[in-house]
């Protein structure tokens, strides 16, 4: 029997809230799915939509983006800018047919270690059910295939 599908998930998080939340989950000895690879950034305002596309391009089955709750931003309003950008980007993804279940957004503060662990678990579970992002992987294979005449 073949191995069960283990999704690859990339999480882009801000260092002041969600990354600290992940730290708290660790120090609280909370277990969460090992499928998530965390990329730490200074602020959600630093998270360009290109990062999300790049993660998918490199074969991620799902992408998470998380930062401080509105009003809590270390830089006062980076997350407000990020929120507008995500609203627009999400609409664009939807219109071009990328399933929105694969790109998730959340606010997780430094005190929400449990929320962090739960979120990682639930998203991993959802994406495991969805299966690999075959449509996109087909395109990746086409790009990486050796040229034929």
């Amino acid at each position, binding site marked *: 029997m073949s191995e069960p599908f283990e999704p690859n998930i990339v999480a882009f998080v801000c260092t002041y809230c969600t990354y600290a939340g992940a730290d708290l989950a660790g120090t609280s000895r909370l277990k969460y799915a090992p499928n998530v690879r965390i990329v730490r950034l200074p602020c959600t305002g630093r998270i360009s939509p*290109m990062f999300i596309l*790049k993660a998918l391009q490199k074969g991620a089955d799902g992408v998470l983006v998380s930062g401080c709750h509105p009003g809590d931003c270390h830089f006062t309003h980076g997350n407000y800018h990020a929120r507008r950008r995500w609203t*627009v980007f999400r609409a*664009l993804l939807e219109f*071009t047919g990328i399933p929105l279940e694969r790109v998730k957004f959340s606010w997780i503060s430094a005190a929400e270690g449990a929320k962090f662990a739960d979120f990682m678990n639930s998203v991993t579970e959802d994406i495991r059910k969805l299966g690999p992002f075959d449509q996109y992987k087909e395109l990746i294979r086409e790009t990486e295939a050796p040229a034929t005449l």
Partner: protein
Amino acid sequence: MTTQEQYKKRVKELLSNGTVKMVIGYKAGTTADRRRPLFVRTPEEADKLVLDSACIANLSGYLVTEGLLSDEKRVGIFLRPDGIRSINILAAEAQLNADQIVILGFDIVGQEVTALSGEKATDFSELIGSIKEKAPEAPQNPQLEQLEKMTPKERFAFWQAEFSRCIKCYACRQACPMCYCRRCIVDSNQPQWVNTSSHTLGNFEWNIVRAFHLSGRCVGCGNCDRACPVNIPLRLINAKMAQEVLGAFDHFSGMSETQEPVLASFKKDDSETFIL
């Protein structure tokens, strides 16, 4: 006197009394239904000007040509309402000084060309306001409606088929008055965000990036659509994003030269139903 004759006279006047150093307009193209841009520097050259229902290109992109406005002299330009909106955006994004632009406004209704009264971008704010009012009720593009009804999988297949034809010539970028970056993100190779080969994946990413950068900035002039050599319906995706931005943030691009760019501003109570 026809609109064309009226404007020819006006251009000669503007050039001979030194109000403007140049007028950007249209002249006859290679075929009867095509027009090409004309850069008029002397009153005599103004005789070549053509203004009719085939003058549909948005010329405002020529204004951000390097060095054109740096001598602080004024430039006249033929613009339809969407072109006037792009002047407002360029001014709001500090790409030009709107005081240097003398607008020769016109509109095309059916086959008729009508003159729009006004000279500065601010003179047209009422007109643009009325276009915004009408925007939500404007007849929806039937293809857009059809796409919205599809499942994500079908939509993905639709766009994949469209984008697989893309040859990455970047004509859409060159034709767009809003694409003025000195160094476009796809020309950067450290890091290389988008594959340069014209495989479907890279094409897909390029078109997503283009549409994202135009969200809340596109005025729907259709320059990209007409420039595309493989007829990808780029206007569809831009129109969809314009709708989204209008719905989510009540933002209609190019309202005034002081309008804040939608993705460079925010409200504390912006909707966030999708954020967990």
